[in-house]
């Protein structure tokens, strides 16, 4: 078991190395880099010369765009990353690790809450749909799930914002706090409620988008289990349909469910780029999108490495949980 995990981690490190090199190459080859973005206005009105720009590029390590130059700076980045230093963000002017640790939490809270909703709505719906296959309930739920999954997030966000914020005025449009309100310094509860109020729509969007997938996944697996021989045995014993569904069938459906859902947990720190941006919520996804647009190489690299590590962690957790829930599995 430990040997298996070690091998898995070693393999992941190798993959991370490859991925990081590829991303580094791609961001270095972006047509307009950070300095171009920052200086284009000054260059145009003549307050800076091309020479100033080149000097700045030199300073930021962006001057040499030849292959060897990129390779050299990549190796430098790799060295400092290996020692735990992800470098300094160009845009945010702070160490990348600081920015990450500041902004992941709000993203995590949004994603985690929607994850919980996704589970408590999607799984029971999937189970019920499967045990009443071909019923009206099954068709209705499947159609809605498909609609939710198919909707683009920006479209759904815009729709909800239009209806609930602009037309009905129930929920705030954007942001995390009401900018026009000033709270006394000890009004923790009001601040908390204010923030919670701002998060309702983003969480609704994420839940709507993902709940269909969970529901479908549960339904498919449940249907497969329900048609298996041991379910027929359970029925032949005289067990009621309730016990057959919720004890014998559901316990088996839990195996793929727990495996895949637990694997999603680390990913919840990754941020929801589009939704956060549309709602102007300062989460890690929003920060990453801004950094990508601005060509903030250290941040892009740091963020992507962070995502890659989350993915690897997800895989490991998934493997371990598989072993926990399925008595047949011994990892080797």
């Amino acid at each position, binding site marked *: 078991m430990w040997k298996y995990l070690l091998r898995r981690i070693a393999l992941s490190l190798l993959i991370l190395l490859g991925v990081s090199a590829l991303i580094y190459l791609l961001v270095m080859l972006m047509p307009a880099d950070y300095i171009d973005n920052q200086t284009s206005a000054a260059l145009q009105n003549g307050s800076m010369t091309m020479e100033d720009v080149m000097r700045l590029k030199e300073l930021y390590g962006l001057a040499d765009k030849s292959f060897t130059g990129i390779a050299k700076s990549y190796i430098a980045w790799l060295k400092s990353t290996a020692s735990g230093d992800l470098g300094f963000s160009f845009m945010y002017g702070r160490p990348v690790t600081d920015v990450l640790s500041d902004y992941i939490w709000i993203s995590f809270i949004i994603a985690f809450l929607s994850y919980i909703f996704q589970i408590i709505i999607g799984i029971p719906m999937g189970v019920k749909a499967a045990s009443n296959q071909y019923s009206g309930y099954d068709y209705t739920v499947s159609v809605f799930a498909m609609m939710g999954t198919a909707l683009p997030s920006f479209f759904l966000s815009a729709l909800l914002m239009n209806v609930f914020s602009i037309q009905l005025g129930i929920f705030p449009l954007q942001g995390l706090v009401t900018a026009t309100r000033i709270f006394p310094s000890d009004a923790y509860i009001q601040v908390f409620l204010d923030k919670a109020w701002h998060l309702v729509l983003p969480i609704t969007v994420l839940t709507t988008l993902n709940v269909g997938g969970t529901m479908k996944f549960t339904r498919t697996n449940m249907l497969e289990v329900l048609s298996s*021989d*041991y379910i027929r*045995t359970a029925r*032949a*014993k*005289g067990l009621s349909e309730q016990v057959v569904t919720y004890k*014998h069938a559901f316990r*088996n459906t839990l195996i793929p469910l727990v495996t895949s859902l637990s694997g999603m947990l680390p990913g919840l720190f990754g941020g929801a780029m589009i939704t956060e941006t549309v709602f102007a919520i300062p989460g890690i996804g929003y920060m990453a999108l801004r950094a990508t647009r601005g060509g903030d190489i250290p941040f892009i690299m740091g963020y992507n490495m962070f995502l890659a590590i989350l993915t690897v962690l997800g895989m490991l957790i998934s493997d371990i949980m598989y072993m926990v829930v399925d008595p047949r599995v011994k990892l080797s």
Partner: protein
Amino acid sequence: MGLFDRFKTKKIEGVDDTMYLTLREERRITKENTKIIKEFERQKNRKHVTEAEYLTQMRDPSNVVEFDNLHTYFFTEVGTVKAVNGVSFDIPQGKIVGVVGESGCGKSVTSLSLMQLVQAPQGQIADGSIRYQAGNGKCYDITKMPKDQMLKIRGKEIAMIFQEPMTSLNPVFRIGEQMDEVVLLHVEGATAESAKARSIEMLNLVGIADEEKIYKNYPHELSGGMRQRVMIAMALACDPRLIIADEPTTALDVTIQAQILELLRNVKDKINGSIMLITHDLGVIAEMADNVVVMYAGRIIEQGTVHEIFKEPKHPYTIGLMKSKPGGKLKEDRLYSIKGQVPNPINMPDFCYFCNRCDHAMNICSKEYPNMVKFSPDHLTACHLYYGEGLQEQNQKRMQNNQSEGKE
């Protein structure tokens, strides 16, 4: 429109015929199915069914089960599959009834009908009755029984053993837990301890030596033969009146097979119950069964005592089966196999189903379905060879043969 329909067809391959369904026909079938299924399900889900509605009388009180003209259909998207199409036979108290026939002839569906376990909603008992002599002295018609009443019979009075021991036990629960469940469910006042004691006793009964250890094992830790023993132990836990064994040994290797059959015969005597033994192995039938039912394409084509069927099979299909049995009468090197295939189950002809494969087929055979002919109180067969026009034709043929022989 017509052109459009032609492109969208579903092919159904039969033996002699290949049918094509147009999209429109398919839609019509689906619509009709939905209607039919809804009506069946409504009937089944009625609340407050009084006992009088499903109480009945056995034709012969020495039987446990009497199938009477049972029809079980599957309403599929390509048409109605008449999996069981008018089956009548009895299972006498304390006897083993063997059911044989080729794959797909409806053996399993017949037994599942008896348990009300046919895969709903597409599978429905369309007609006929199954009379069951319950332990409390009453006689029920299982086809009319409400679901909640059926739960009291399943596992308690009628238990089932399946073909695939590898997949028939729930992989995530320990053997003990799965066995205790039956006792806790059906035995009044059972406690966790009494259930465990009973399970261990049953494991011991089926010849498992280290029962305490097996009790704690998961199914995947046991071999196929062991698992089948566990299934049998589980089936025995409540002293059932009838055990349905659906190909209990097909998935096992030969030595284990013999052990399991021996075990089944022993436990039958111990609990004084009956067994409905489904198999396509005639050797098993010869060794185990008292009575034999031969099925073909959803119907019974011959039935009788094991002696009658093996000594003097009447139906050409049964005769063919006897020849195909390894070590049978015909001592050929190679296994005799009946040529041809079972007809398309969706488009059953209204004449003898065996017609396309029968060596003796006559004109009448492709005109009407043969009646059951009685040779003895138990021995019946459905074949034109033995009555009416067919018999005459047969006699004429025989006479001609005799004459031609006489000339030589």
